């Protein structure tokens, strides 16, 4: 179960700001989903190896060849704001 306090904490971690109404709804909905999910707590999983990747791949390497990458103006073309050849953002200090 996940209460309002936890919802607000998680929202801060996720960089989301929720309205009062959203906090209440999120608490109800996430609690319902987590209630279903918590059934995996019943399984005996001692000694079972975790799967991080389903297909056997080890050390996927490619030759280290110099090749052109995106031109700076192309890389910046989709940015909401640019300045001096970089992404412009509000001051972190503000």
């Amino acid at each position, binding site marked *: 179960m*996940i209460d309002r306090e*936890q*919802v607000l*904490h*998680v*929202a801060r*971690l*996720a*960089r*989301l*700001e*929720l309205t009062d109404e*959203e906090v209440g709804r*999120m608490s109800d*909905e*996430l609690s*319902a*989903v*987590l209630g*279903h*999910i*918590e*059934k*995996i*707590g019943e*399984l005996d*999983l001692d000694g*079972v*190896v*975790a*799967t*991080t*990747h*389903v*297909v*056997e*791949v080890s050390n*996927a390497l*490619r030759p280290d060849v110099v090749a052109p990458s*995106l031109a700076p103006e*192309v*890389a910046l*073309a*989709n*940015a*909401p*704001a640019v300045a001096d050849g970089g*992404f412009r*953002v*509000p*001051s*972190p*200090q*503000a």
Partner: protein
Amino acid sequence: MAATDPTALTAAAAAAAIDRGELSAGELFEAYRDAAAGDELNAYLWVADGPPEPPTAGAPLHGVPLAVKDLFCTEGVPSQAGSRILEGYRPPYTASVVARLAEAGAPLLGKTNQDEFAMGSSNENSAFGPVLNPWDRTRVPGGSSGGSAAAVAAGSAPWALGTDTGGSIRQPAALCGIVGLKPTYGTVSRYGMIAFASSLDQAGPLTRDVTDAALLLGHMVGHDQRDSTSVGFPGQVDRPTAQRLDGIRLGVPEELSGEGIAIDPGVLEQFQATLKLAEELGAGVQNCRLPHAPHALSAYYVLAPAEASSNLARYDGVRYGARSEPADGLVEMYTNTRSEHFGPEVKRRIMLGTYSLSSGYYDAYYGRAQRVRTKIAEDFHTVFEDFDFVVTPTSPTVAFELGAKTADPLSMYLNDYCTVPMSLAGIPAISIPCGLSERLPVGFQLAGPAFSENAILDAAFALEQAIGFDGSACRA
């Protein structure tokens, strides 16, 4: 030939007609461009302006155009994954699989509507409004590749690309009465696919029949050095020809065919009728067990949102898409941008994923879910010692009414009950239409071991011939 409507042909038939000189690629493209531009199902978010460059002589797909789910990056063409947060994004590059298909002679026809960031089973989570089901416009097409499925079913595209994370190709294919194939994880490059859950996402074909699925898949697979998880496909994808299923052993997992999940009686009836047909074709049909399958959905709804919460951290208003201004400082800009531009389902999954990865909960949720994933893969391994394929209904229900499940996320998630186990195991699975219930299509799912695509396509082809499903009914 000129007198008939070229959009009535399957993609393989159209390619063959062009090859024989009976149809021009330009004429076919125009016919589909008109159909896509006139689409009334909200299946398209963007349609090509004019004909592409003529296909290179000898290109194996001969210029048969392709509809592509919005989340595939296409250079200079809007690619927003159904989200407002990517407003105005025009990628500087094209996804490997789309580029590969264009080179093979399948030019881009349009970008199709989808649930935002592929999170959904009904297409109602698109920022651009839901897609309508061509069989009944008051119903959903399924999701998340709902635009691709509806376009192919309605005949406004000869074939389409979708992506499947927990059922997002197979379920909409089932609900729209077409064929949808999720390949083995790693066979198709994910480079240029806007990511949802990277350990599960896989591109695949949505087509009118099994032959088209094989033809399209054959030009999708292959190692890509820009996707370090891609492994390619051993050998080539063959055109399916099987007429019989002699010696084929089909396993019906009890956990996914009635036990533990309520399956509509009409769906179950069509599923069982298809098993009978399979037996008549020579297949052996027996029950089998996937003991951990009832926990697959739980594991999935830990793992997929966890990966999503990490993948979607990149949408912060800095490099592309929307930004909320003015903001009092950097963190407020991030927060406002994300809060104002993500839809409710995306926020819900980011919250769920962030929660299960947060300090104190990681082991109980994420760690356990990864171990459940191992058990599910082992269950399939065990079953495939005695069976060639596992078969289930693709979806527990036929297409449901718009709005029917939007108020209850958990009931929406249950749509993926029969498709999620294969996604977690990384194995290939196809959905083919097997009949109608309540005048709506029912999907039959066939899954096999990793890299068994040729065998799956062959078996699906034999079944398809025996079933004789007529998808043209919704195009009238």
